[in-house]
């Protein structure tokens, strides 16, 4: 009996699982750096975050939705890693568990699971934690270890003080690039994150549109809002969640728009909003909020911004 399905009769062989696996691989250099920088804390937080995300997804599909498990697509693992990357490396396990529950339960499964969620699940979890546990979420260790480690001001706080006219010692660009500064677990090393970003571009897992537009916009507005200082503008790109957000969070398939033009608009707005919040907001970091706000605009962008058409002349 011959199969008579319609064309195309061949497939690229790509799969959701492969896409997610590539993201995981791309995040490994940053994880390796975090382990070097923050020691075992980085591993404990990352592994437990992944474990909690996987666990909650199993529990929800099994006992609430009564649907087959969706772990195979690896998206819960990606969410787990990204959530961990967005929290301090000495965060208590019970807080991580709550973050994972909110990320998977509220951010993803409540909307209908992978593909149906409006907001980036990891960021939903992260922002929930930031608001619910502001103290634990904003004391970043500056050295290796998990418990009882020294904490200090992050470069972003220094940049904000600088913009407000305070006489502060700006962080070294090299430190920000390599990642020997304080901050959330996975966001510190710009170079490691960029390395993974190049991998994702080469493997065509993501396109350049979102990361480049976020970074360009953040640089331009960073220069405008932070005293027309190029060094500061560059450090705005290298510090905090900017790289992690631009390359790995804003490019989240499900919550970002779907054609090159709308992706550019989306990226430019994220860069602008992040810098706006960093400069004038109550929090030193605005990346998570900027991405979540633009997530909400994604359906609108999808509806009103059309791709470049073939054979349609502008009137």
């Amino acid at each position, binding site marked *: 009996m011959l*199969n008579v399905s319609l064309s195309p009769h061949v497939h690229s062989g790509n799969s*959701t699982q492969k896409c997610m696996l590539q993201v995981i691989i791309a995040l490994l250099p940053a994880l390796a750096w975090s382990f070097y920088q923050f020691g075992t804390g980085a591993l404990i937080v990352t592994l437990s975050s992944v474990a909690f995300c996987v666990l909650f997804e199993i529990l929800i599909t099994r006992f609430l939705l009564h649907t087959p498990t969706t772990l195979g697509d690896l998206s819960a693992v990606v969410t787990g890693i990204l959530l961990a990357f967005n929290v301090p490396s000495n965060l208590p396990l019970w807080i991580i568990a709550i973050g994972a529950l909110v990320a998977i339960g509220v951010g993803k499964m409540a909307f209908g699971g992978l593909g149906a969620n409006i907001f980036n699940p990891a960021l939903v979890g992260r922002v929930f934690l930031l608001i619910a546990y502001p103290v634990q979420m904003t004391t970043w260790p500056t050295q290796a270890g998990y418990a009882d480690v020294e904490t200090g001001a992050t470069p972003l706080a220094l940049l904000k003080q600088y913009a407000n006219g305070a006489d502060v010692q700006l962080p070294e660009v090299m430190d920000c690039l390599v990642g020997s500064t304080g901050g959330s677990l996975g966001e510190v090393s710009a170079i490691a994150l960029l390395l993974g970003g190049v991998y994702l571009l080469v493997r065509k897992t993501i396109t350049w549109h979102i990361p480049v537009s976020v970074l360009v916009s953040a640089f331009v507005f960073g220069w405008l809002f932070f005293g027309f200082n190029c060094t500061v503008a560059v450090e705005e790109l290298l510090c905090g969640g900017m790289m992690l957000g631009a390359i790995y969070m804003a490019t989240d398939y499900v919550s970002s728009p779907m054609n090159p033009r709308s992706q550019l608009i989306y990226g430019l707005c994220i860069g602008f909003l992040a810098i706006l919040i960093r400069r004038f907001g109550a929090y030193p970091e605005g990346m998570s909020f900027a991405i979540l706000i633009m997530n909400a605009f994604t359906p609108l962008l999808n509806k009103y911004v059309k791709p470049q058409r*073939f054979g349609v002349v502008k009137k």
Partner: protein
Amino acid sequence: MKTFKLGGVHPAANKLSDKAPIEVAAVPAMVAIPMAQNLGAPSKAIVAKGDKVKVGTVIGEPGGFLSSFVHSSVSGTVDKVDLVEDATGKKVPAVFIKVEGDEWEESIDRSKDIVREIKLEKQAIIDRVKACGIVGMGGATFPTQVKLTPPPTAKPECVIINAVECEPYLTSDHSLMLAHAEEICIGVQILEKAMGVSKAYIGIEANKPDAIKLMTETAKNGFPEIEIVPLKLKYPQGGEKQLINAVIGKEVPSGGLPIATGALVQNVGTAFAVYEAVQKNKPLIERIVTVTGKSVKKPSNFLARLGVPVADLIAAAGGVPEDTGKIISGGPMMGKAMPDTNSYMVKGCSGILVMKNEEARRKEASPCIRCAKCVHACPMGLQPNFLSKYSELGMLDEAEAERIYDCIECGSCQFSCPANRPLLDWIRQGKPKVMGILRARAAAAAEAKKAAEAAAAEKK
């Protein structure tokens, strides 16, 4: 290197038969020549049981404006006119001819000499092309004489020859170029003369360096106006709109004819068939067909007479392998899956692709993760994810607004979908419905205009 501007994908080329020379396929004891071998109205059989025919005898007449002559590919006696399956399993009338000897019509020049001088004038060329039953050989089978007669408003500037062969596996055009470079160039000149233009391009993808080299050398010797354009490998470069865009940089306007760009596109096989028709008075009675597949013993390029059973051709390439799951007429991206091997060779069949069971099954679809790979792959600048969803949900207004009618059904979206979603299946459901609405709307508008004019005339 040039290519088209939007989208595109890179399926594995799998040109298994690209080193295989052209082999003449055996003529069986009985052929069945289908009367539906062209786009448009089927031809009408004009022979009956007992009629004697030679190779090249007309056995079918055009059944309308958009239709073609069909000629006997063998000599012998007409056995019956009966229904046969076409490649998709649809029943079409066919003339069965019992083969006796190999006698050709005297008017056909069977010598091996290459005739360079083009004696026929513009209209005579078009008439000859029609009389010889030439259709687009790339697979679309559009009657060539119709394409050579563009609307009077068109301003033809050049001829573009489609030698891209961007479909994986297929090598019929490739082998044809290697065997008949000079004849093809003369055929191109004939097409130029028919269109009244003096510039031609032959677009060839970069994975055929031997063909690019040979065609370039051939064109240098006496065909100065023919330019060989090597193209960067990308599917669907052989799509008419994509090829025009790649070669001369222009875009066929949405809803318009390709000739609006000044370019007339013809397949390289058509150029060769036109050469044989005009210079040798030989009707279209045979073509090159690739029989291939990973499990096929001897992937081959056959010169096969029309009406030869498809099963015979597969047998000549080593037979249908044990674990065959799908047999395709054409290439793997746009070809049609055949329900069985009971159909017969036709003018538009450029390849027969045998796929193993494991290759033939689609993977189960999972939820759309909105990765936008289909959007990036679409060569027409459409959003296949939305088109598919709108078709599925019957949201035809939205599908129209998203320009579902521009879809060329190349399959790039479905090919690249990581969730294995049947995007094109759904788009194929919605597209004809939207086209129907557009046609009905245009007809109603024309009717209203007519009525208004009649009313205005009455007033006067």
